[in-house]
C-alpha cells in the first residue's frame, strides 16, 4: 500500500513538474534555446504573488489574476530586450545571457526580499491542506489534483493552440524554419516574443503552485529548472504530452526514492534522468532535434 501511495503521490507531483517543464519545452521547441533562467522566473512569479497576497490579503489563486498578465508582459519585454538580441549572436549566446539573467534575478530577489524560506500554503486556505481519503494509507490531496488538472489543461491548451489556431500555425512554421517563415510573411521575432510570454506565464503558474504546495525561497529557481529539464528529456524533447509523462516518471522516481529513504528522493530522480540519457531513447534525442518537431 505504501508503494501505491508513493506512485499516486509521484503522479500528482509529476503534474507540477510538467507545468514547470512546458514553458521550457515551448521555448526550446520554437527558438531552440534552453532558458537557464526559467526556474528563477518561476520563483520571481511566486514572489510577485507573495507580495500581492501579503499586501492585500488576497488568496494566492486570486492574486494570479493580476500577476499572470504582468508576467506575460514581462516575458514579452524580456524577449524584445535581451533574448532577441542574443538569438542573433549565435547558438551559445542565449545560454550565456539566460544564465547571467538567472544570477541577476536570483540575487535581486535575495536583495529585495530576504533569504527566508516562505510558503503560500497558509494563505491558500483549505485547498492546500484538504484531501480525499481513499483508504487508510492512500489519500489524494485537493491541491495535488488541482495541479495535475491544471497541467493537463495547460498542456492540452497549448497543444490545441499549436494545432488549431493561426498563431499556432505561425509558431510551428517559425520553429521549423524561421527564415522561410519570415519570407512568407510570418513575423518571426513577434512569434518568438509571444512564445516567451506564454512560457513565462506558465512558469509563474508553476512557481505559485510550488509555493502553495511546499516552500520556496530566493534560491529555489535552479532546482526547479533542473527538474523541469529532466521532465522534458525523460518525456522526449519537443513533445508536449511527453513532457507530462516525463514529469510523472520523475515525480514517481522521487517519491519512490523518498519511500526508501528521504535522502534518496532527488537523487533517484537524477538517476532516472541519467539512465534515460544513457538508453537508446536518449540516443534518439539528437535525431528528434534535427527533425525540428514542436508538438
Amino acid at each position, binding site marked *: 500500500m505504501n508503494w501505491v501511495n508513493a506512485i499516486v503521490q509521484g503522479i500528482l507531483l509529476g503534474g507540477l513538474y510538467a507545468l514547470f517543464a512546458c514553458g521550457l519545452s515551448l521555448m*526550446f521547441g520554437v527558438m*531552440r*534555446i*534552453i532558458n*537557464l533562467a526559467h526556474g528563477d522566473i518561476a520563483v520571481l512569479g511566486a514572489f510577485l504573488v507573495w507580495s500581492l497576497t501579503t499586501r492585500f490579503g488576497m488568496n494566492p489563486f486570486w492574486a494570479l489574476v493580476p500577476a499572470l498578465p504582468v508576467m506575460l508582459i514581462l516575458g514579452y519585454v524580456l524577449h524584445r530586450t*535581451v533574448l532577441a*538580441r*542574443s538569438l542573433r*549572436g*549565435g*547558438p*551559445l*549566446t*542565449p*545560454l*550565456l*545571457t539566460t*544564465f*547571467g*539573467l*538567472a*544570477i*541577476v534575478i*536570483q*540575487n*535581486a530577489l*535575495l*536583495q529585495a526580499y530576504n533569504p527566508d524560506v516562505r510558503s503560500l500554503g497558509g494563505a491558500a486556505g483549505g485547498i492546500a491542506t484538504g484531501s480525499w481519503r481513499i483508504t487508510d494509507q492512500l489519500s489524494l490531496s485537493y491541491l495535488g489534483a488541482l495541479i495535475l488538472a491544471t497541467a493537463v489543461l495547460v498542456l492540452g491548451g497549448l497543444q490545441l493552440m499549436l494545432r488549431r489556431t493561426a498563431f499556432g500555425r505561425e509558431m510551428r512554421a517559425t520553429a521549423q524554419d524561421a527564415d522561410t517563415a519570415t519570407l512568407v510573411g510570418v513575423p518571426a521575432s513577434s512569434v518568438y516574443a509571444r512564445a516567451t510570454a506564454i512560457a513565462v506565464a506558465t512558469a509563474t503558474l508553476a512557481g505559485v503552485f510550488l509555493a502553495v504546495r511546499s516552500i520556496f525561497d530566493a534560491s529555489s529557481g*535552479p532546482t526547479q*529548472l*533542473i527538474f523541469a*529539464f*529532466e521532465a522534458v*528529456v525523460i518525456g522526449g*524533447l519537443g513533445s508536449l504530452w511527453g513532457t507530462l509523462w516525463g514529469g510523472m516518471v520523475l515525480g514517481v522516481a522521487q517519491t519512490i526514492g523518498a519511500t526508501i529513504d528521504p*535522502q534518496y528522493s*532527488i*537523487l533517484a530522480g*537524477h*538517476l532516472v*534522468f*541519467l539512465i534515460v*540519457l*544513457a538508453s537508446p531513447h*536518449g*540516443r534518439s*534525442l*539528437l535525431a528528434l*532535434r534535427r527533425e525540428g518537431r514542436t508538438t
Partner: protein
Amino acid sequence: MSEQWTVKRSGRATRISSGVFVLIGIVLFTVPLGFRADVVQQLTTLCTLLIMAVMWNVLAGYGGLVSVGQQAFIGFGAYATVYLAQLGVPAYLAVVLAALASAVLAVALAPLLLRLRGGQFAVGTWVVAEALALLVALDHELGGGTGVSLRGLNTIAPDWRRAYTYWLTLGFAVLLLVLVFLLLRRRSGAAIQAIRDDEEAAASLGVRIMPLKFMLFVLAGFGCGAAGALTLANTLFIQPQSIFGVQWSAYMLFMVLVGGIGTYEGPILGAILFFLLQDWFAQYGAWYLIGLGAVAIAFALFLPRGLWSLADDRLPFRLLPVGYTLRPAG
C-alpha cells in the same frame, strides 16, 4: 602567387612578448620567498580562478560546449583529495591523484554528456554535478552535508604550507596553460578554432569533431578537478553545497565572457579582473552578484569577444604564437 606570400607563426614582437610571459611565470614562482603569507594565499586563489577560467574557455570557447556543471569536477577533485588523504596518501600527492581521477571521471561521463548539444549539454552537466553533490552528502566518512577538512597538511608550518600549496597551484596553472598552448599551436589548433567558428562547416571540411571535443572535455575535467583539489588545499575545509555550487559556473562564465571567449589571453585577463573585483566588491553580497550577472549579459550581447578583443584588434602582432600570419615574401 604562392611564392609571394609566406605563412609565419611569429615575428620578433611575438617572440619578445612570449618571452615576457615566460619571465612572468618564473618570477611568480619566487613570490613566497619575499612576500607575506596572505599575499601568497591570495595569489593561490588567483591561480585556481585562472585554471577554472582557462578550462571553461577550452570547453565553451573552443569546443562550443557551454557547461553549467564544471563544479562536478571541482567538487569531485576536492572530495577525491579528502578521500585519498583519509586513506593515508600524502596530501599534496592526493591533490595530483585527484586531478587525474577527475580526468578519468570525465572519460566516463563523456559518452553520456557529449551526445547532448547546446543547452542540453549545459543542464545535463549541471544534473551530474547535483547528483554527485547528493551522493557525497550521503557519505558520512566524507563529512556528509556538514563538510570536511583536509587532514595531513596541518603538520606543516603554516607559512611553508601556503608556499607549497602556492607552488603546486602555480605549477598546475602553468602546466595547463602550456597544454592549451600546445593544443592550439599544433595541428589540432586549426581544427579546434574551426570548430569554434562554425562546427558544421568544420565537419563538412573533414574535421573529426567528436575526438576533439572528447579531448577538450577530458582536459577541462582534469583542470577543474585540479582547481577543486587546490581550492581545498588552500582553504583546508569544504562543504558539498559550496564546492558543488553552481556559483563556480557563474564565476567561470563571467571571467571568460569579460576577458574574451575563444581567445588564449582572454581568460587570463578575465581571471585577474574577476579576482580584483571580488576583492573590492564581494562585501556587497547580493548586489555584487547582480552586478556580475548584468555585466556578463552586457558582454555577451554587446562585446561578445570580450575585453581582450579591444586590445587584440589594435595590436599589430599577437602576444603568443598561436595563430598564423600571412606576410609578403622577401
